């Protein structure tokens, strides 16, 4: 069987396997973090909309951003898994979603 990418070394631990995947497919970590972001955002929005009839998009965007940041920070401890540019973009999106959240509250809300 011929693969079009180098198979990761799975005998060195999960982190080495992840680094191997990242070296072969450079979009792997950004897509993984985007997946986490979307899971929190869409899951929260859908659940809130089903329960109370409307969805607080700024709040769930902020929660999704912070969740993604919390997952991305431990990734910096392994070399080759995430680069400074990606981390910078995540931090910036977190701050921008915080700006959106704190400036869109109507009266009676937080």
């Amino acid at each position, binding site marked *: 069987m011929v693969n079009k990418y180098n198979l990761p070394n799975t005998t060195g631990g999960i982190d080495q396997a992840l680094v191997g995947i990242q070296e072969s497919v450079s979009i792997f970590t950004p897509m993984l973090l985007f997946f986490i972001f979307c899971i929190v955002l869409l899951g929260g929005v859908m659940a809130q909309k089903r329960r109370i009839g409307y969805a607080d998009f700024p709040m769930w965007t902020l929660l999704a951003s912070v969740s993604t940041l919390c997952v991305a920070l431990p990734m910096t401890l392994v070399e080759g898994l995430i680069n400074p540019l990606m981390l910078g973009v995540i931090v910036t999106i977190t701050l*921008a979603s*915080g700006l959106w959240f704190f400036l869109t509250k109507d009266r009676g809300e937080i």
Partner: protein
Amino acid sequence: MGYIKLLGGFLLVMIFSIAIVSYVVFYTNDNASSVNLDQDFNDFNSDLQANGTLYYNEVNTSSDNIFKSTVSEGSQTTVSGQGLKGGISTLYTSVSSIFDLISSKIFGGDPRFTIFLTMIGAFILFVMAVYFIKMWIGANPD
């Protein structure tokens, strides 16, 4: 959103930014991270903390002016109105710092993409102007 909630929102934005950026900077420093954060983050962290200190001092001064303000007999107007002016300049610099980081990290510092930031900034200024006018003509500023 009224005037007080707008100021409160800006204050919370500043505190939130300090918390997030300090968390990232100190996490990567304390845990021997393989990712070296560039100088932009350290500069942004220092700027935000300086803004927070300045805001704190301005609010203290403004609050002190409210307590010291006097009403002359028969006029029913306060001599000092500093309380509603506190912290505007530092809030502006804090938000512009966030915009600088967005421009640098998401748009790569490319001036052609800053039209988005200009649009967002213009919208925020428009909303602020609307609320200032609304407050000026006597509407309830919350």
